[in-house]
């Protein structure tokens, strides 16, 4: 709101007030501020308060919640565990989802390829499914009860490798990361495909005249031109991964089992906020965790905006 007033004052000095700028901006800014920013600010404020266990009065406690979160072993151990798991979750996405997304998009953009439409439609499809469906489908498929995955692995000769992947501490998080990659691979694919299509023919023709074709053309020319898109995808993945909650919740429940091996920041926030088993919920501590998540994400985005995006050259096309 201040910004708008600011804007109006400065406009008045120089030119007649440009009403259309306000008209264009106002609906988005008002809805966004009312429904998103103010409630979020409320949450941040909440993290500096705590309910007294005996008198039940909520009072200002300063940084006490944060001190507990970072130094009290009861809080810091699960917190660091979930932070580490979250980094691992993100790493798998960057190493698997984005390279495969680029590969699929590159193959799809090959000029004469019949059946393009089918492939694109099929591979994007899981992205449209809800976490309820995805979580449940994979849980059923990987379950030893139903035996579908064991049967399939046997049929390709690796039946002895079968494990209850979601039930073992060593494999659960990797399995869930790959399920999430399975679900969201369509997003990098579509964005990169659109970026590849928007490369003008003249650029490709010029490269061909210089004898740069095929795979070297892809790496030397196209990949360089779509780097900004890959940058956007990376930051979207980062944000999405550090907010992830639903998939873990629908497959492993709020306790992020087995033995918290799939605990992410989102699930620890949920448990803190709403309580778990015998422990009642603690909204103020939850607000503190939410605030920490907020700053982690903010840092990632700042790194992208100020270091990575600036280094990327945007080519006029």
């Amino acid at each position, binding site marked *: 709101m201040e910004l708008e007033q600011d804007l109006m004052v400065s406009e008045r000095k120089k030119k007649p007030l440009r009403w*259309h700028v306000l008209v264009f*901006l106002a609906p988005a800014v008002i809805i966004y501020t009312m429904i*998103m920013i103010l409630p979020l600010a409320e949450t941040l404020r909440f993290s500096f308060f705590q309910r007294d266990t005996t008198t039940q009065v909520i009072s200002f406690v300063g940084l006490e919640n944060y001190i507990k979160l970072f130094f009290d072993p009861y809080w810091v151990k699960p917190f660091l565990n979930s932070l580490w798991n979250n980094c691992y979750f993100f790493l798998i996405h960057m190493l698997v989802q984005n390279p495969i997304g680029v590969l699929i998009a590159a193959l799809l953009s090959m000029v004469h390829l019949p*059946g393009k439409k089918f492939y694109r439609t099929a*591979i994007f499809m899981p992205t449209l499914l809800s976490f*309820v469906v995805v979580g449940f489908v994979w849980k059923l498929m990987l379950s030893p009860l139903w035996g579908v995955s064991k049967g399939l692995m046997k049929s390709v000769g690796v039946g002895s490798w079968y494990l209850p992947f979601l039930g073992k501490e060593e494999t659960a998080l990797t399995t869930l990361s790959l399920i999430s990659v399975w679900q969201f691979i369509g997003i990098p694919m579509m964005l990169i495909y659109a970026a590849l299509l928007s490369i003008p023919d003249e650029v490709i023709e010029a490269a061909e005249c210089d004898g740069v074709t*095929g795979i070297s053309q892809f790496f030397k020319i196209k990949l360089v031109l779509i780097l900004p898109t890959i940058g956007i995808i990376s930051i979207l993945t980062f944000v999405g991964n550090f907010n992830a909650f639903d998939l873990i919740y629908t497959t492993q429940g709020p306790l992020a089992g087995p033995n918290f091996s799939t605990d992410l920041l989102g699930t620890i926030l949920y448990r803190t906020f709403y309580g778990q088993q015998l422990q009642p919920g603690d909204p103020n501590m939850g607000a503190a965790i939410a605030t920490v*998540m907020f700053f982690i*994400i903010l840092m990632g985005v700042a790194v992208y905006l100020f270091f990575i995006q600036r280094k990327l050259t945007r080519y006029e096309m």
Partner: protein
Amino acid sequence: MAISRARRNRMAELGAHVILLTFAVIALFPVLLILINSLKTKKAIFRKPLELPTSETLDLVGYSTVLQQGNFPLYFWNSLFVTGASLCLILLFGAMAAFALSEYKFRGNRLMGLYMALGIMIPIRLGTVGILRLMVATDLVNTHWALILVYTAQGLPLAIFILSEFMSIVSSDLKSAGRIDGLSEYSIFLRLVLPLIRPAMATVAVFSMIPIWNDLWFPLVLAPAEHTKTLTLGAQVFVGQYSNNWNAILAAMALAVIPVLILYTLFSRQLIRGLTSGAVK
């Protein structure tokens, strides 16, 4: 020379087909598995999960359970209305704000851009308590509008971000020409810029639609009443209640998936048309 090159191209094409087909099968298999098994008897589900239903194993008991117990047509309508209304608001308001930010130089422009971009990274869920209070105060709990407003706020930042990226590419000569011809700023936006960024709008629509249609959290918190329940929430509640009835669960999953598949088939055609007409020039 020409022949060997043609052959190499054919080999590359074959390789591309093999890789793409593999990924397509991986993407489709789990969903097909659910659809197939939802039509079978309980015995056949466990004994022969990979086989198509035959006349012997065909059994629609799951669907009849779901349709008797659940209010699925209503849930479907709720999801459709909430998603559709939110998308319209996101696209309209998002494009307007993106246009203002990318077209006009004013003080605080960059700051305003950052302010709006803030919402891409913050999950709106972190503000749930505040949102619930607001909705209670305005008496919007258990209405479609509570969800629509939240989803619009949630979708706007990304829409503005993507759309301004695309709007900065639109040639400024075109807009100057429009101004010289006496078009108002509103008609420049509506008649010159919007048609050119249609492919970007389609992309934004798909990306905004997914989290809205699939959201479980806000329907649960803001609109859990029977008459406002969305399809996702309805399916989740149903699966929880019938956790041992495999027929019913598989049928509920199938019913949750089928509308998405239909919507997607309708929508993807538009998306592809947008992509090819706009992006290729």
